[in-house]
Structure formats: C-alpha cells, structure tokens
C-alpha cells in the first residue's frame, strides 16, 4: 500500500489504540477498536475563537473552530445578541473565502490593457512605494470606494480621504437609501430600527424579504422561530413577488409592484375607522382622524393594489383589511417598506407608510414593536452608509471631468453592481485615472486596477462593526484574526496600509490611531470602558440597558406620509415588471466566487449555479415557454439572457431575476458559465432614482421576454417529479399540515 499522509495517520491512530489497550491513560481515553466507525478516532484539540462576519446582511457574531492553525468550522456565537448562536446559510462560506484557490496571493501590477486582468507579482516594497506616490500626487483627487462598514474601518478611511483632500464613499449594490431616508425623517436616527418579531402577536409586512436578505435575516429568523412558538403569531405579507418571506407568511397577498405604501395606509385608515388604533390618532392625523386618509380607504385603493379576488378567501378588500386590522390591534407589528419595496420611484412613500403604521399601532419602543436604533457607542459611529445612486452618477461625471484621478477600491464592485447606464465602467476605462484595488479577489472593478494590494481575509483580520439594525440596544461587534495567512499568501491589512501611508506622507497626526488593532482597542477600552480581552472572548460588547429612543412622532405624521403618495413610475416598456432580488446566498454577487454560496439551492426554485427568471407557470405555458428555455430579457438599458423557471407562485406579469450572476472577471466559480445561464440583471436597469432619496429605483423597471431559440438543463435540487424528491409519494403523504383550530 502506498503510504500517503492520510493512511499514515490512520495507521498511527490504530497504533495509538494499541497503546491504550495496555491500560495506559485509561482515565482519559476510551479504548477504541479499529473496526469501529472512523468517526470514533478523534485526535487533536480544537479551539473556538469568537469573531465577527460582516459579509452577510446585518452581520453576525461567529465562533470559529481552529485546529493546528487552520480554521475548520464556523458556528453562530451563542452570546452575540443578534444571531444568538444561529447562523446564516452563507456563514460557513467565510471559510471558503479564507482558503479560496483564487485569492490574490500578493501585490501585483497590471501588465496588459486595462480591464484585461493581466498582472505580474511585485514586492510589497514596490507596491507601497507606488501606492504612496499615487496618493502623494493625486490625493486631492482621490476617491476611496469601500464596502459599507461603520466603526474603526470607516473612521480610518474617512480620515485618510480627508487628510489628502479626497473623498470616501461606501458602495452597496442593493441600494436601500429610500428606507434610510424614511427612518431618518420619521425616527430621527441613522441606524435602522429593529422589529421585535419575537414578541409580536400579529405581523404584517410590506415587500421586504426579511427572512432571506433584508435587514438582518438571521436575527429576524431567530425571532421568527420564537414568533411561531407558544402563542403562534400570525403573519400576513404583501409583496408583488413570491419571495421566501411570502412563502413563509401565513397569508401572502400579491399586490401591484410599488403599491406597498397604499396597502399600509389602507390598513391605517381601517384601524382608525374601526377605533382600533392604540397610538395618538389626533396627533398623527392633525385631528382629522380617518378623514386624513380618506384617499386610502380599502375600496378606494383596491384598484391600485390589484389583489386578486381569489386571494381574499371570498372577502372584499375592505372586509379583509377589517379582519386584519382587528388582529393587528393586539400586539400588531408592521414591517418592511425597505429593500425591494423602497426601490420604486415611490419607495420613500412605501417605507414611510410601513414605519408610520407602527406609530398608529402604538408599538414604537414597546416589546413586540418597532425598537428605535440606540445611539452609537463609539466616535465615527454610523457614518459609512452606502452612497445612493445620485452620488455614483456624480462620480462618473467627476472622473470624466478630471476631478477624480485616483480611485482606491476595497471589497466593493461598483462596476458590476451599478446599472451600465451610470457609465462608471466607461469612466474608469480612462487611463488618466489611476486605479488601485485592495480587494482579496478579482472582481469586475478590481480587474480594471493598475495596482493590487490584497487585504487579508476576514478571518485573518481585525475589525469591528455596528450591526444594523441593532437588536433594540447597543451592540459593538469585534472581529479578531483567528488564523494567520497560509505561507503561499502574502496579504496585508488594508486599514494598516492606509495608516502607514498617511504616516509616511506626513499625515500621521490626522489619523485616529497607529494601527487598526490599536483603534479597536482604544474603542473598547477608552470609549466603552470595557476589557479588551473580554470583548474578544465575547465577540464584542453590548449593553442591554441601552434601548434607543425616538422623538415623538411628527404632528400630522400620517398626513405627511399620505402627501408623499404617488404611483410607482415604470422605466422602460414591456409586458413584465422586472423585479431583481438579491440571491439568497450569492447575495448581490459578492459571494459569486464561493462554491458553497453557488451550490446552495435557492429556497423557492431550488436552482443552483445559474441565473434564472421566475415567470408565472400558467403565463409561461401560454407563451409557449418551458423550463430551461433561454429567453432574452430586454430592460430599459439593454438585454440579458436567462433560463426560464416556471414558478407556480409568481404572479403573472412579474419577471423576477436573482442578482449575483454574470460575473466575467475573477474566479472560475463565478465566471465559468456563459451568458445564457449566468447574467447580471443590474446591468440592464435604468439609472432612475427613487423620488426624494437619490437611491437607485432597482424595482421600477419594465421588460419584455422573448425566446432566444435555445434551451439548457436547469441545475436544481428538485427532481423530475415536479417539486418532490421522495419517490412517487404524493406530497400530501409527505408534507402534512393542520388548520389553526386543530393545533396545540
């Protein structure tokens, strides 16, 4: 037998069991038989380190199992207040980003045409000399583009940009600016409020996919499990798309795209009219009562909502809303208005209406209600919020006008994530602009860089975060390095590169600390007055007695919100509303290079690795489409192709396409599929803004769908028997349910 490392260890294990049989160490070790299953042969000691994963929506506290210097497993940190020991489906993928074969090994210099992705390795000394020279020469025309990451990272980036007269912008493909504006207007806070689902009795939600990608889906899922324990709450969801949240709601009501705000105000009118509102109706309506919302009577907005009669179980819209209002009156919570619902031209109205409904329900700051964001515990606070579309349109024109001549990018991919119409890729192709990337992987933006200075992976790095939303009280998350980079990798901490460059260029005094670690330590010890080691062991610092407070609602809040009402504008033409949505695990494309994110079946369709378009099953058949047909989706700004998935739940007239496909630069896991089965839906969107917020109206596009004359097999978990796996058994034999009366 060839002696490999593995079977050497196996033989070594058997030899060890022989030693134990001689009664040595009997107190500590169990006598093993070599015919026992191999799992019985446990060797080595493990250590679990608390750290933090900022790459998933809302962030999560994690514990990493480390054996002999290698990270082996990630689990949720049971002490961490948001995810409470649980984890997102993408949590373990952080290991793949650590040990990924396509990590940029060390600093590199472009040696081909811009965007061709040709680089040659250079030394760190040369790389840092080039970096410093670029900053010294062009610092006043510098744009630093990073991921949205409040805390020490944002403070270092802001200080660095300020010191040289440049600018720092945070980028997020999924632009939620309208929701943030609504929160700021109504609650006066920069952070998102937390929805206390766990203690609510009835939950009504509007268009936000909070069980999949909106807010903090892991924390909200933990709460959802509690919501369904004991008292068994009731959940009604309004959404034009059959999302994962819609699938889990007790009742899903398909509504017209962009009508979420109308549904929320119709409920508000019903609550006031029925005398069920717990909040200060007189203040909220300027003393007008229900009359302030007369335009939103359920029968008046039924035409705008377009809820199919069959979804109402024989009731009229008014009757259904009356029944729902009577349930909401006791322990009711309204949620949503952000994410997809906030990404129509009227997104600010949708978000405001959903938030304002909670004031009417009288639940703001109450258990089971809307919990205002607490104050930020550290300086610099929440000042790294994603920049809205309007800023990015300005960036493209700044570059064209010569006002920006140095772009430094870190873990952000605006070239991929912004609609092509914004013109950023074209602007960056101008060789007069120097581009430096500190991302650890090649992506569409990094591929255009002149100089690569790869940052360390998350599990190799210091970091901190202010989770958004916080769970009703202050949380400061701390990320510590749990392993060292492998010997064939030579990354460097990007925040430390910035701090060192500032010092080298005579701007050290403008920076908040000498190192990233020192700033985090100072945040913990000096600002929070906490013990550094203890904070590392716990994965952060939190104060459960630091609930946020919101000012009393503006006088006439509901009337003000009603004044924002406007139908959602449609960009482009075509018979379908194009609804992009963040992929459940690939998200906005940031995880496209991670095989676990790609191979995790989409919860609704079970599709993996590909880009598909969800079309209503009956409508698709009438169009002569079959699953796997390649169709051309023509939006306001060009076309993409995708595979048809005939979805029994998707409303007719909706074309829902997951984000995250169509990467053309970087790892083969992201790029080895052709355009028929992997495409970037963001590229064809109009560069249209949400009214009054400057955010990208990524939900507000129309498209047409035409067969491309080709078809491919759809890779998915579900089998040949439509939607079931266990042989030929009827679904009713396998999946059982009870009606509410029979439960408990």
């Amino acid at each position: 037998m060839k002696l490999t490392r593995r079977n050497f260890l196996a033989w070594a294990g058997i030899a060890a069991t022989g030693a134990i049989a001689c009664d040595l160490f009997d107190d500590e070790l169990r006598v093993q038989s070599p015919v026992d299953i191999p799992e019985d042969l446990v060797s080595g000691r493990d250590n679990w380190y608390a750290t933090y994963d900022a790459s998933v929506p809302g962030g999560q506290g994690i514990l990493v199992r480390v054996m002999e210097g290698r990270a082996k497993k990630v689990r949720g940190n049971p002490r961490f207040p948001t995810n409470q020991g649980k984890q997102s489906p993408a949590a373990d993928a952080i290991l793949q980003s650590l040990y990924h074969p396509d990590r940029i090994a060390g600093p590199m210099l472009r040696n081909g045409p811009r965007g061709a992705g040709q680089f040659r390795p250079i030394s760190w000394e040369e790389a840092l000399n080039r970096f410093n020279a670029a900053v010294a020469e062009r610092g006043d025309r510098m744009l630093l583009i990073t991921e949205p990451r409040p805390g020490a990272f944002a403070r270092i980036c802001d200080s660095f940009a300020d010191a040289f007269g440049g600018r720092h912008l945070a980028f997020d493909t999924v632009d939620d600016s309208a929701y943030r504006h609504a929160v700021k207007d109504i609650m006066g806070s920069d952070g998102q409020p937390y929805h206390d689902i766990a203690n609510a009795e009835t939950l009504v939600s509007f268009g936000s996919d909070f069980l999949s990608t909106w807010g903090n889906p892991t924390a909200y899922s933990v709460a959802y499990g509690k919501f369904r324990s004991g008292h068994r709450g009731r959940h009604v969801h309004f959404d034009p798309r059959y999302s994962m949240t819609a699938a889990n709601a007790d009742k899903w009501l398909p509504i017209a795209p962009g009508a979420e705000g109308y549904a929320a105000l119709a409920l508000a009118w019903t609550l006031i009219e029925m005398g069920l509102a717990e909040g200060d109706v007189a203040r909220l309506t300027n003393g007008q009562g229900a009359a302030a919302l007369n335009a939103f009577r359920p029968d008046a907005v039924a035409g705008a909502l377009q809820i199919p009669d069959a979804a109402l179980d024989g009731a009229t819209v008014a009757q259904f809303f009356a029944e729902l209002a009577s349930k909401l009156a006791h322990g009711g919570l309204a949620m949503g208005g952000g994410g997809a619902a906030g990404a129509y031209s009227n997104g600010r109205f949708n978000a405001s209406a959903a938030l304002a409904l909670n004031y009417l329900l009288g639940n703001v700051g109450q258990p089971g209600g809307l919990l205002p964001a607490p104050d930020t515990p550290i300086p610099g606070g929440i000042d790294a919020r994603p920049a809205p579309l309007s800023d990015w349109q300005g960036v493209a024109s700044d570059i064209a006008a010569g006002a920006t001549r140095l772009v430094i990018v870190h873990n952000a991919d605006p070239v991929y994530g912004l609609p092509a119409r914004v013109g950023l890729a074209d602007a960056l192709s101008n060789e007069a602009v120097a581009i430096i990337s500190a991302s650890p992987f090649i992506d569409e933006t990094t591929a255009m860089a002149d100089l690569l200075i790869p940052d360390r992976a998350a599990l190799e790095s210091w970091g901190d975060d202010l989770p958004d939303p916080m769970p009703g009280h202050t949380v400061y998350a701390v990320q510590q390095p749990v392993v060292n980079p492998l010997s064939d990798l030579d990354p460097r901490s990007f925040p430390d590169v910035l701090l060192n460059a500032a010092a080298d260029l005579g701007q050290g005094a403008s920076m908040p600390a000498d190192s990233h670690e020192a700033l985090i330590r100072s945040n913990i010890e000096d600002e929070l007055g906490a013990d550094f080691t203890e904070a590392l062991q716990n994965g952060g610092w939190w104060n459960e007695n630091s609930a946020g407070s919101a000012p009393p609602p503006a006088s006439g809040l509901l009337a003000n919100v009603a004044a924002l009402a406007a139908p959602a504008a449609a960009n482009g033409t075509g018979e379908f509303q194009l609804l992009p949505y963040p992929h459940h695990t690939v998200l906005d494309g940031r995880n496209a290079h991670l095989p676990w994110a790609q191979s995790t079946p989409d919860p609704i369709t079970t599709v993996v690795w590909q880009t598909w378009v969800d079309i209503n099953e009956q409508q698709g058949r009438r169009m002569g489409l079959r699953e796997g047909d390649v169709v051309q989706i023509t939006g306001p700004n060009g076309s993409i192709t995708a595979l048809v998935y005939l979805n029994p739940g998707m409303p007719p007239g909706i074309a829902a396409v997951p984000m995250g496909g169509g990467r053309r630069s970087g790892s083969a896991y992201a790029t080895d599929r052709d355009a028929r089965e992997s495409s970037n839906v963001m590229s064809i969107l109009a560069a249209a803004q949400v009214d009054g917020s400057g955010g990208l109206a990524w939900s507000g596009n129309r498209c047409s769908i035409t067969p491309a004359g080709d078809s491919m097999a759809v890779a998915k978990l579900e089998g040949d028997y439509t939607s079931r796996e266990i042989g030929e058994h009827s679904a009713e034999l396998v999946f059982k349910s009870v009606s509410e009366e029979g439960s408990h």
Partner: protein
Amino acid sequence: MVVDLDKCTGCQACVVACQAENNIPINTKDYFLQRRAYEWIRIERYWEGEYPNVKARFMPVLCQHCENAPCEPVCPVYATYHNEEGLNVQVYNRCVGTRYCINNCPYQVRMFNYWHPNWPHRMENQLNPDVTVRSRGITEKCTFCVQRIRRGEIQVEARAGQRLDDNRIAAGNYDPACVQACPTSALMFGDLNEPNTAIKPYFDDVNNYPGHHEHERETRGYRLLEEMNTRPSVIYLKKVDQYPLADKGAH
C-alpha cells in the same frame, strides 16, 4: 430529532452547515444535473395550490435513523448497522458499493460517491479532521454528526477524569451541525435514552398514538412515510395553517 415544519423557513443554513462539518465535496453544477449532488440534509420544496392561493412548503429531509431500517438488512457486508445508541451507522471501510441500501431507502437520503472527492488547492485546509473523507465507490449519509457526540463524550471524560456514564453529557453539547445552525430552531435534537430530554414528549405522543389522526391534530407529530413501518428516529411536527387552502392541488 424533531423537525418543526411550522418553523422551517427553508433557509438552507442546515444544509451548508452540514456540508462544512462533514467534509462533503463541492456540489458542482454537473452533480445537480446528474441528480448526484451530495446533501446529507436537504430542503425539499413542495408546491400546494394554484396562484394566487399557492404555498411553497419547506421540509428538511435527512437520514431518519430508522429503528426498522430498510437499508440495513440488504447490505451484504454489514457496512450499515444499528448501533447501541440507536444511530444508523455507515462503516465506510466495509462498504463495497453495491448501492443496495440506496435502492432500499424510501427517503432517498443515501448518497453514492461516484467521483473521487476533490478539493481545490488550499480548500483542503478547512476539512474537519474528525470526519473521514469518503473515497470513490462507497455510500455515505447523515450520521447525526456522530463525531460531535464522540468529541463531547471524550471532552467530558477528560475533564472529569473518569469514564462517562449515561447521563453526564449535557444536551446541547452534541447538537449536530444542522441543529446548531438552524436560525428558527426548527430542528431539535436529544438523546432519547435520557429521561428528561426536551424532545422525548414528542416521541411519547407519536409512539402512544400511532396513526391516530385526531390526536395528531393536537400534537402535530408524525413520522415520514409512517405506513412503511420503518419507525424513524426523526419526528416531524405538522405545519400550522392559519389560512388553509381550500384545494391543495398538491404537486
């Protein structure tokens, strides 16, 4: 194990946690196209009804660790057997790859290694040293993370300096990766040999009233494909429907 279908949101956190814990090879697109993807736990998605009264149903399915396991008697080499703890065990170095067990499993939770397991450069560093990497040509399946049970036992023994008795390892110290990960706590795990385990009442209910449908309405407990009398060690709790579909039209 108890699976509460009323809490499962279909989020797949269990699926990925299992793959990370158990050294499951990367499921490429081709593996799915050939219907040979490795998922020791999977979320089945069923459709009920027609638009707009439509429901996607999520159901985690894993090895049921049956007391009357159909996979066990058909194995010609005793690679799969029932151990004294009630686990349905797969001994990889006995398996000769007949796949009889796979054919005989009504739950389709056994997977065959059609390919040599392969990890790209560097990713082998994350392999769990407690779990064997299975070679080509053998069958594998959910173990209820037996390595976590063993490690829990050994650590407790090492700490106490003496052999473990039946009741010493505290619940929660040996949760399988899927149970630990599940955000909504739809998955619950425990040792039925312990009298006070949280899952025991669910088993008592189902065992005392097998096939008693009126009682099922109250406890919600049932076993998957109960009519096959495989006596699974996994109990499902029915989904609670507050707005039941008039016509399920299941497909």
